[in-house]
């Protein structure tokens, strides 16, 4: 077993374990903490895929800002109301999830893995290459993303502010 492989399996199993911990605790705060941990391990996985910039963004924006938002809202609410409760058709849920999982996994094994790593330029996935791509080829989606964020801001204010 190579070092790469050990690293991958450690990270992969940690992210799966923590995402299981998102599902099962009855306390939502525990779920949120487990989700933050999952996001962090996925960020480390991004590092193994030559995506250092994305890993940083994932930690800062996702595990940082978004999860803090989740925790804030959970704290604002009455914890008693947050008791997890399962619905009667959980069997259906697990069946659907398992079926889809089997289907997807079997699908990927159809495809022989490319042997070895493809040659990757040193700067691949760094801020410079990403920025170059983002502000030239992806300038239009980038602008639309700004409109999307504007909509979200208006919405959050319009829905959550208390009437004065």
């Amino acid at each position, binding site marked *: 077993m*190579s070092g790469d*492989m050990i690293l*991958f399996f450690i990270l992969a199993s940690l992210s*799966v374990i923590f*995402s299981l911990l*998102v*599902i099962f605790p009855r306390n*939502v705060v525990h779920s949120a903490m487990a*989700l933050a941990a*999952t996001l962090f391990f*996925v960020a480390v*996985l*991004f590092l*193994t*895929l030559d*995506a250092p*910039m*994305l890993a940083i963004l994932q930690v800062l*924006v*996702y595990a940082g*800002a*978004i999860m803090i*938002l*989740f925790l804030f*809202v959970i704290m*604002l609410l*009455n914890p008693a*109301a*947050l008791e*997890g*409760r*399962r*619905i009667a*058709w959980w069997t259906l*849920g*697990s069946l*659907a*999830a398992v079926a*889809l*999982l089997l289907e*997807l*996994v079997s699908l*990927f094994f159809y495809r022989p*893995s*490319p042997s070895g*790593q493809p040659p*990757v330029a040193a700067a691949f*996935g760094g801020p410079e290459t*990403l920025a170059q791509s*983002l502000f030239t080829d*992806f300038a239009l*989606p980038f602008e639309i993303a700004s409109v*999307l*964020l504007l*909509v*979200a801001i208006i*919405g*959050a204010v319009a*829905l*959550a502010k208390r009437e004065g």
Partner: protein
Amino acid sequence: MAIGLTHYLVLGAILFSLGLYTVLTRRNAISVLMGVELILNSANINYVAFSHFSSGNVDGQIYAIFVIMLAAAEAAVGLAIVLAIFQLFHTIDVGAVETLKE
């Protein structure tokens, strides 16, 4: 055997299924939202892995940035809706909130 695309795709599929399970079985709106976050992450793993192994350009990573942006927007709006619901009903249980007739 080296770590290949398949490994990452399988991990993505597992996270996707766990997210799907969460969305289908939890009634608490915040937990459902967390399930959605898991699904978005599984898509992100796929984007980055495909970008690394097959396409050789950073497009996939750019898509992942857009997904993170989308997750932020959805979390903001979703949590605002949850707050509004809580002010009205004092619960965020998707099933307990039932004023609409069947």
